[in-house]
Each structure stands twice: as C-alpha cells, then as structure tokens.
C-alpha cells in the first residue's frame, strides 16, 4: 500500500514535469511548475524529510511562481521557439543508458530507513550523543546547521542575500 502511493506521487511528478516542458504558453508552464514543486514537496514529506518539504512548498510552489510571473511582466508571454529542433540522436541513446547505469548503481545503496547503513551507525548517533555537550543547543538540526556547519550556512546566506539584492534592483528598474 505504501509502495503504490509512492508510485502514484512519482507518476504525477513525471506528468507535471513533462507538461511544463511541452506546453507552449509560458504562463501555463509556470502554473505547471508550481504544481510540480508541490508534488515534489509531497514526496519529501512522504520520505520523512519534513523540513525539506516545507522549504519546497514555500519556495518552490509559492515564491518561485511569483518570481517567474514577475519575469513574464518584463518579457514575452509566448515561447518564441515554436518549432523546436528535434533532440540529437546521441542524446536519445546516451541519456536512457545513463539512467539505466544510475539505476544499476542505486542497487548498492543501503535500503531506505536501514538501521545498519553507515550513515545511521556512525554519524547520526555521534551527533545525537554529543551535540548538546558541544553546542548547548537542544535542537539537533539547529546545532548541525548553526554550529557544525556554520561556515557552510554563512556562505549560503551570502548567496541568498546577493540573489535578493539582485532581484530587488531588477524589479526596481522595471517599475520606473
């Protein structure tokens, strides 16, 4: 039963992704991308990554739609390349081959939720045991983000801040 529900979600994900690429009207592509990231959020939530699902639902389905629409304000609403060139033959053969290779390699990964996988035998217990003594933070996720990987988080914040400034400048010029 659980398995079939995952399959349903993945089918919806594939349908929306293909529709967003194939549809000619860019406005419809934006709406389809919004539903695509919502289904992605459902998949994250189903796999137990609630934080990632929250970010995907808020940023992907909410904020990205608005940003894309603001882009459409400044550009044309139609896809001007109505007659797209067909994909090259090499890509048609090489990409499915790559997919098969990746699926074959994924066989060696530990099963989902496996308690004996390396990640859950070495890293997770160490964080759970030591994080409170090391950082005095009751929330483990916060201590990992803000203490163990604080440099990472800082540079990420710099990237997002720069993107925000760029968006603000572009939108201001468009308004005047």
């Amino acid at each position, binding site marked *: *039963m*659980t398995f*079939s*529900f995952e399959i*349903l*979600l993945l089918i*919806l994900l594939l*349908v*929306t992704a293909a*529709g967003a690429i194939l*549809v000619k*009207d860019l*406005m*419809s592509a934006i*709406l*389809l991308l*919004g*539903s695509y990231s*919502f289904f992605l*959020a*459902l998949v994250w*939530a*189903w796999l*137990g990554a*609630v934080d990632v*699902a*929250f970010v995907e*639902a*808020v940023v992907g*389905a*909410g*904020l990205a*739609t*608005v940003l894309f*629409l*603001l882009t*459409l*304000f400044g550009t044309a*609403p*139609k896809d001007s390349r109505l007659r797209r060139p067909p994909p090259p033959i090499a890509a048609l053969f090489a990409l499915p081959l790559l997919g098969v290779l990746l699926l074959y390699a994924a066989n060696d990964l530990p099963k989902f939720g496996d308690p004996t996988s390396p990640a859950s035998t070495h890293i997770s217990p160490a964080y759970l045991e030591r994080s409170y003594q090391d950082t005095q933070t009751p929330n483990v996720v916060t201590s990992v983000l803000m203490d163990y990987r604080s440099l990472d988080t800082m540079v990420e914040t710099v990237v997002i801040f720069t993107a925000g400034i760029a968006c603000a400048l572009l939108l201001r010029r468009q308004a005047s």
Partner: protein
Amino acid sequence: MTTFFLFVLVVLVILIGAYLYRVLQGPTIFDRVLGLNGISTKAIIVLVLMGTVFERVDMFVDIATGYALLNLMGALAVAKYLEQKGLP
C-alpha cells in the same frame, strides 16, 4: 485506521489527477488557474492526512498552512498579471 487513511490518501491523489488533466489540457488560462486552485485544496488535506499517518500532525499542519498562504499569493499574482497584461 492507518489503512483507512492510506486509502483516503490514494483516492485524493487520484482526484488530483483529474484536476491535473484540466491543468494540462485546459484551453484557456482560467481553466489552468482553477485547476491549480483545486489541486491546492486537495493538497492541504493530503498534507494533514500524511501527518496523521506518520503521527506528526503538528509539523505537517505547519507545512499545510504555509502552502495554503503562499498558494493564495500565487493566485493573486496570476490575477494581477492578467489584469495588467490582458488575456493571452
């Protein structure tokens, strides 16, 4: 009880498929917007139901609320775009 919730989840996702047909196929932009709004109403229920299946309703209610608020904002943005640019 979990089986019941799972059954409801599957039925809701199949219903989302019906809305998705309208979003993909819809001849006018309003069909697509309405289909997307219908998907989002199902989406909120699906998220809360997932929370009951995992027995972590409190976190999933947060996601559902955030999604509902931002989806309203998306619909407003679409309406404002159509108002300023006219129908495509």
